[in-house]
């Protein structure tokens, strides 16, 4: 039990980082109504670009920006495969994801893992987030505002505010209309190909940012770090929706719910691990949980009957006539 409680700040930090990716998934899956599998690849692209630039002496902001742009480029490829080449979105994402595996390796100099050398304090100080900071803050050797929960929390809030603004603009509304009813959108003069590509780019930009932050947190970029990211993203989206849809109606709060969903997901994972589950079974567990949550709304619609009071026929004389006919 103590293990679990001690691991909580780390779990929350990781959950917040993955939450940024989940917000990206929300944009495609919920707003654009497209299941975009590019994320499994673009997550690592962000990490790889960031680590390579950063370890070669690049500035933090430049490295993060480059990671975001690389993710957007991945989204652009998927978008063009889908709109220009007419490939179904899900397949377009799979193609990009597959191709990105090689691209990511190439970015990382054909190495499966590239570490950020954090043995020197100077290098460590330059990082925005690191799992070492979790302990440092607990021990009091670092100020609270260097805690990953604080830093990533600010990132998350900034992203939510930015997206809240964007989806309220004319362009953002056009993007939402595209996901809601593409026919209607075209009839209103919206270039739905453009809005789809734009949505995929924004989404994958966020995913890559999340990857870059996780690489910092773990002080390494690893070729398989994005595997299954889409499932984690969907889990966060669904947990957020199931847990908060009754309370959160505002768009910004819905995005916040996604981030909280990711945190809950990581807390549950931590709890399961603390109970002694072999970590290798985690992916199976995730797949089962997400599968179940995706199926529940379908089952609900198919098998459950709404509780409606059916008025007794004889009592309904005011409307009368029918039973006399």
């Amino acid at each position, binding site marked *: 039990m103590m293990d679990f409680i001690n691991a909580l700040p780390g779990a929350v930090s990781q959950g917040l980082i993955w939450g940024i990716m989940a917000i990206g998934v929300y944009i495609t899956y919920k707003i654009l109504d497209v299941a975009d599998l590019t994320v499994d690849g673009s997550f690592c692209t962000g990490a790889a670009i960031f680590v390579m630039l950063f370890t070669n002496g690049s500035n933090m902001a430049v490295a993060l920006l480059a990671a975001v742009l690389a993710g957007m480029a991945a989204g652009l490829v998927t978008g063009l495969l889908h709109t220009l080449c007419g490939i179904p979105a899900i397949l377009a994402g799979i193609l990009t994801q597959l191709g990105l595996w090689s691209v990511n390796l190439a970015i990382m100099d054909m190495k499966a893992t590239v570490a950020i050398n954090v043995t020197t304090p100077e290098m460590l100080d330059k990082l925005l987030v690191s799992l070492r900071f979790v302990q440092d803050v607990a021990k009091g050797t670092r100020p609270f505002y260097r805690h990953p929960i604080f830093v990533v929390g600010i990132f998350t809030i900034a992203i939510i505010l930015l997206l809240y603004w964007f989806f309220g603009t*004319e*362009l953002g509304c056009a993007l*939402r209309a595209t996901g809601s009813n593409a026919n209607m*959108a075209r009839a209103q003069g919206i270039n739905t190909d453009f809005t789809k590509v734009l949505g995929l780019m924004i989404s994958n930009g966020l995913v890559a940012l999340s990857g870059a932050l996780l690489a910092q947190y773990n002080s390494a970029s690893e070729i398989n770090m994005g595997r299954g990211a889409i499932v984690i993203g969907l889990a966060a989206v669904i947990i957020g929706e199931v847990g908060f849809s009754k309370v959160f109606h505002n768009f910004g709060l819905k995005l916040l719910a996604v981030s909280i969903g990711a945190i809950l997901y990581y807390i549950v994972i931590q709890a399961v691990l603390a109970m002694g589950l072999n970590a290798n079974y985690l992916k199976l567990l995730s797949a089962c949980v997400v599968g179940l949550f995706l199926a529940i709304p379908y089952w609900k619609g198919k098998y459950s009957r709404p509780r409606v009071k059916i008025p007794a026929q004889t009592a309904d004389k005011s409307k009368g006539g029918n039973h006399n006919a």
Partner: protein
Amino acid sequence: MLEIKEIWKTFNAGTVNEKQALRGVSLTLHDGDFCTVIGGNGAGKSTMLNAVAGVWSVDAGSISIGGTDVTRLPEFKRAQFIGRVFQDPMMGTAPTMQIIENLALAARRGRSRGLGWGITKAEKERYHEMLRNLDLGLEDRLTSKVGLLSGGQRQALTLLMASLQKPRLLLLDEHTAALDPKTAAKVLELSDRIVAENHLTTMMVTHNMKDAIAHGNRLIMMYNGRIVIDVSGEEKKKLTVPQLLELFSKVSGSDEADDKLLLS
């Protein structure tokens, strides 16, 4: 205003399902014309409207709206000239968005969309006023999701949306066919009102001969991918359903068309 010249369209060319949907259709509508379009199933009515709207490109021929050749323009670019209401009430609105958001989207039809606000304060009041004039009880539900509205309410809303940004051409594609008779009559009445108030050039496809005769100043009938009857002015005003049927069997050279039309 609208000039259709010899347009042809074949679906599934070269397969057993080949269907010549449009076979050299030509039609000119003048400014302010309200043209009703009738014909049996598969006559090419909706196909003609879709060709004008640019849902796909035609095989041959040309289409111009207000002097602009739109034959090669994609659907979303033609939208700047055209307002549309579809047969399926689900098709004309974004169900997961609010009533006011749908209206704001429509108000920006044909304009470039940037990073300005999707809805401005001034618009909110304007839409409230407009919806009150529609008298559907929607003015107090501006922030409701359109998915919660009935079919009739959605068609009325789509009509309003089509006219917000005054279109050069209004295309009504059997927009009352999916509604119950009472609601259909109401939506039709509203269509007349909106067309008259805005002096819109309009094409309305309908299955109902009475409606086709009662509305508009011109009537065309399609058969087998062609326009076979075209009446307007005084001649149209005096037209009756039996006359129309007789005219049709003469032009199409068969009686079977009678049943087809009446049954459809």
